[in-house]
């Protein structure tokens, strides 16, 4: 595939728009960020709403399961640190925390759901 061609991957665990060659490294980077209580990655929990690489900016939209969670900032910093390893240095990284739409258990991956007894 032509590297400059944007890849809108439907089969990815979250919507991704950007160069095809960066899709897997970014997914791996996000899978390295874990929810510590669950021993599960934020991707498996379904906290990643989407990744868009455009105009020199890598924008990642995520949510959390609770507004009362004090660990949110640490998770956001971990996301940024992991992306920092794979995103080209000239690109800005923007991790946005959103509350709409709200998280629900439907967003969990099949393996996460199996672990949690669904």
């Amino acid at each position, binding site marked *: 595939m032509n590297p400059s061609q944007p890849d809108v991957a439907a089969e990815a665990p979250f919507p991704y728009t950007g160069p095809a060659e960066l899709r897997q490294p970014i997914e791996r980077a996000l899978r390295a960020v874990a929810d*510590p*209580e669950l021993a599960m990655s934020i991707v498996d929990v379904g906290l990643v709403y989407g990744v868009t690489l455009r105009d020199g900016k890598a924008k990642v939209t995520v949510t959390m399961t*609770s*507004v009362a969670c*004090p660990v949110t900032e640490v998770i956001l910093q971990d996301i940024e640190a992991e992306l920092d390893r794979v995103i080209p240095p000239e690109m800005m990284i923007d991790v946005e925390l959103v509350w709409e739409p709200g998280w629900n258990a439907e967003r969990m991956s099949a393996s996460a759901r199996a672990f949690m007894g669904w």
Partner: protein
Amino acid sequence: MGARAAWMVAVALLLIGGVVGGLLRAGVAVPVPDARAWPGHAVLSHAFLMVCGFLGTVIGIERAVAAKARLAFAAPIASASAGVAALNGAPTLAAWLVVLAALSFVMVNASMLLRQKVAHIGVLLVGAAAWFVGALLHAWGGSAHGTGAVPWWFSFLILTIAGERLEMTRLMRRRAGAAASLYVVLGGLLLGSAAFSISATAGAIVFGGSLVALAAWLMCFDIARRTVASHGVSRYMAVCLLAGYAWLGIAGVAWMAAAVGHPLRDLALHALGMGFVFSMMLAHAPVVLPALTRVKVQFGRHFYVPLALLHASLAVRALASLSPEFLRAGALGNAVAMAAFLLTLLASSLAWRSKHRSGGHAVRAHD
């Protein structure tokens, strides 16, 4: 001194004050300077220092960090000041500072409920309101009638934990009626707290029965049953949680037994305060501490040492009605467990630093 360092010193002083007060109450000969008045004040204010001073401040900081609003720090500032006032022999000022802290905390939680209208935030808000009711009873009631505040203070801690656990149960397939049954149990807890001021016996029985029911609910529905099969810090947290739920059940039985005349008051208070609440704190500290202080910790099996010490010393303390020696040994063991936990955190943060010393990335542009 930075704000984070100042908070750490304040929280540590409140904990030390509360623990010294508890040890002296239990009859442990703590070497405290004779010329100082604070150990005497710590004895009188032990429960106040532990619940409103130490735990109220830690929970207040946790919520303020999550709220990302400077104004939200008014609650922990007021509760920490209350603890300092209590240690300096100003109980009236301390009591009203906690009223202020609890009121601020109610507003922080109400603003969170507006942001995310979900059940578990509602439970956290009710927990904050329970603290406010307990604080008012304590401030108005004085030392003669202020004991009616204690079940409300505990309700604040229990609802805070229950709200956080309810949030996590969303990850599991829940049986029909699970959430509704939790609300009934928590309603019983509040009813017991309210009844305590009218009839201490009836209140304690309803309160204790609700604790037993809550322990059963958490054992059935909490994710710890699943995550105990995982590894590392997740498994450690699950072990802390499940051990805490066992003590919660024991505490409930002890509350009911103490209400009908059995000499189990110490067990009722400490199975709940130490066995349940402190177990939750031990569970979450490796994860929450970096969020509050930006000090990261390297998790390892050594975290199980203070946990084992806590539960073993509580088991000794549970025999306090047989001999004061068990009370003294158990209370001392509880304090040693807490000291061991603080040392574990310190050693783990140093281990993390040495492991990541060579790390670091080039700085890139940010929005």
